[in-house]
């Protein structure tokens, strides 16, 4: 594709299929202090919100507090992750804290003998956990030299990734003999980022593949050094960086894998940044990738670490920049497994929703050039309709569907996530099916939003 075409003047994007965000009553109680992140349980109607030195677990049925994790960390808890694949009466969270450690916590509903109150809750019950049940801090994962910024369980629950201001990503493996035997070992310390590592994310199971000499698990990390790195385990059990994604012009605040690809291709990556852009990256899947590494996947040879073998590389290209919707840092974005829509939020207090046109998703995918990216950053050109129709232009597929300013009044919004509805306001037949958005702000409010 030519990068010499002058940008065509365009008018602002008008929503194609207008989407409206309707605020639902916030979760109770208000936290009255900055809350960082709210993570839905993979299967149960629970949401874990990190704030100050604790985590409050909310019930998605009652929209009120279920339980809380306190007295485990000396400094703020920045992030948390649910252990997947546990029976419904057992809960397990790992917390990442500014105190440089990660904590593994468990909550068990002993009284229910295996068929816990959580299941009752899911079918419309109301009770919050009784007061005498509590979360217990079981294991502290120590090793990072400074604040832990993000923690993530792998899809199987076998691995946990943590990352820190110390520029490292650590991978820990559950080597315990049974579920209750909490023994964890460090299996990799990845030191290739040049700045704080802000977020880690594991590729979900769907469409994931071993790709040659690699195992199934794939990890992505986002950094203050403006890059994203992709990590895989080779046939010798070594975790190696297989790609460096360069293009963002500021701290990459986060990364998420495509949760439910519509075709059989490898999941794409969504990244968001202090440069106020959200980017989509696509793996170039080809048969003969072992022969001759593509140079531009690394933006120049200078950044390839000596320890990396050429044949191990993957080529990831930025295939879309979402339409401009934010005027300050984008702290969070979330990709829906149901609708494929993306929602984003950040310092400007705006919640934006984007949709991807369904057609041609698996057709020829254009690569966004640096010129186009720069124009997008300047706000001069909106990628969604600024280019001639003849080119395969992936970014044309993304449209801005709605923007909601002041979603938390004047406050910054640190996190947004899609999440299933279980509350009484949702018709019973749609509980556990219908999606809502949940935003978490500096005002300590965790607010659900209905999409209409």
């Amino acid at each position, binding site marked *: 594709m030519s990068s010499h075409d002058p940008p065509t003047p365009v008018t602002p994007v008008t929503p194609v299929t207008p989407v409206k965000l309707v605020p639902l009553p916030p979760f109770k109680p208000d936290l009255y202090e900055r809350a960082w992140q709210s993570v839905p349980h993979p299967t149960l109607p629970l949401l874990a919100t990190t704030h100050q030195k604790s985590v409050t677990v909310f019930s998605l049925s009652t929209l009120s507090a279920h339980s809380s994790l306190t007295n485990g960390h000396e400094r703020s808890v920045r992030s948390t992750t649910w252990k997947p694949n546990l029976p419904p009466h057992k809960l397990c969270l790992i917390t990442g804290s500014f105190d440089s450690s990660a904590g593994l916590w468990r909550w068990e509903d002993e009284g229910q003998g295996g068929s816990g109150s959580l299941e009752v809750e899911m079918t419309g019950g109301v009770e919050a956990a009784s007061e005498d049940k509590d979360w217990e801090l079981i294991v502290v994962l120590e090793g990072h030299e400074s604040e832990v910024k993000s923690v993530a369980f792998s899809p199987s629950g076998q691995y946990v990734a943590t990352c820190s201001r110390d520029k490292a990503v650590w991978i820990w493996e559950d080597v315990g003999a049974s579920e209750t035997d909490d023994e964890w070992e460090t299996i990799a310390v990845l030191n290739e980022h040049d700045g704080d590592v802000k977020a880690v994310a594991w590729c979900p199971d769907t469409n994931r593949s071993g790709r040659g000499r690699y195992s199934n698990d794939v990890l992505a990390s986002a950094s203050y050094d403006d890059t994203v790195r992709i990590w895989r385990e080779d046939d010798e059990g070594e975790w190696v960086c297989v790609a460096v994604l360069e293009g963002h012009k500021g701290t990459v605040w986060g990364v998420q894998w495509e949760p439910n690809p519509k075709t059989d291709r490898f999941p794409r990556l969504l990244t968001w940044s202090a440069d106020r852009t959200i980017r989509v990256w696509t793996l170039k899947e080809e048969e003969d990738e072992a022969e001759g590494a593509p140079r531009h996947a690394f933006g120049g040879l200078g950044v390839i670490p000596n320890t990396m073998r050429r044949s191990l590389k993957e080529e990831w290209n930025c295939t879309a920049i979402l339409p401009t919707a934010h005027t300050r840092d984008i702290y969070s974005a979330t990709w829906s497994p149901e609708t494929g829509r993306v929602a984003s939020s950040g310092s400007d207090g705006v919640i934006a929703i984007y949709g991807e046109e369904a057609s041609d998703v698996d057709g020829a995918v254009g690569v966004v050039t640096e010129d186009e990216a720069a124009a997008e950053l300047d706000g001069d050109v909106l990628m969604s309709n600024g280019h001639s129709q003849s080119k395969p232009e992936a970014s044309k597929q993304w449209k801005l569907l709605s923007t909601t300013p002041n979603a938390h009044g*004047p406050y910054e919004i640190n996190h947004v996530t899609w999440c299933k509805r279980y509350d009484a306001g949702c018709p019973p037949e749609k509980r556990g099916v219908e999606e809502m958005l949940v935003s978490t702000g500096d005002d300590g409010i965790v607010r659900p939003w209905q999409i209409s």
Partner: protein
Amino acid sequence: MDKDNANPTILNVSELPTRLNKKKAAATGKVAELEVDIVLRRPEYLSAPFCDLPWASDDTDSDDGFTIEPIDEQEIYDLISTISDPEHPLSLGQLAVVNLPDIYITPSPSAAAAADPNTLTQVLVKITPTITHCSLATVIGLGIRVRLEQALPPNYRVDVMIKEGTHSQDDQVNKQLADKERVAAALENATLKGVLDKMLETCT
């Protein structure tokens, strides 16, 4: 410990920009308020450090200062010029680390008379470290950001940057100061918090 700059240039207190000077200069200034200021103003010899913020005193119309009159550059200056330098017994105003012309408010306070409390207002402060390699530039910037975030309403977004060409690592410092997560973590560091508290002690 050696100071980064043992002999900084120091401005005379009386030369620093104040609300009072501005009002005298402005023919349309509010006479009644001006008189109150003059009557209640502490003598110069008691004003060390000089923290006579007009709206911060109970005796003036300060109660709704945020809503009646938009916050202007002078008010921002008054909030941060009294911060103490971490290594000299002087204020950031006296050391000309903060300067009134290097404070920018967007949208401009004159344009945003009837401000919606939800409308975002950006305050950009460009600081001038006393020497180009001053290692305390980050701490000073952090102090200014913390002071303004504590004092201003929540619709204000505070950006602190090193003034172009005055510091050898300005990009690096700017990026740190703009990083919300790093700022939040820094405030939980007891040593750094102690330094910041000391710097802000001289603000009222």
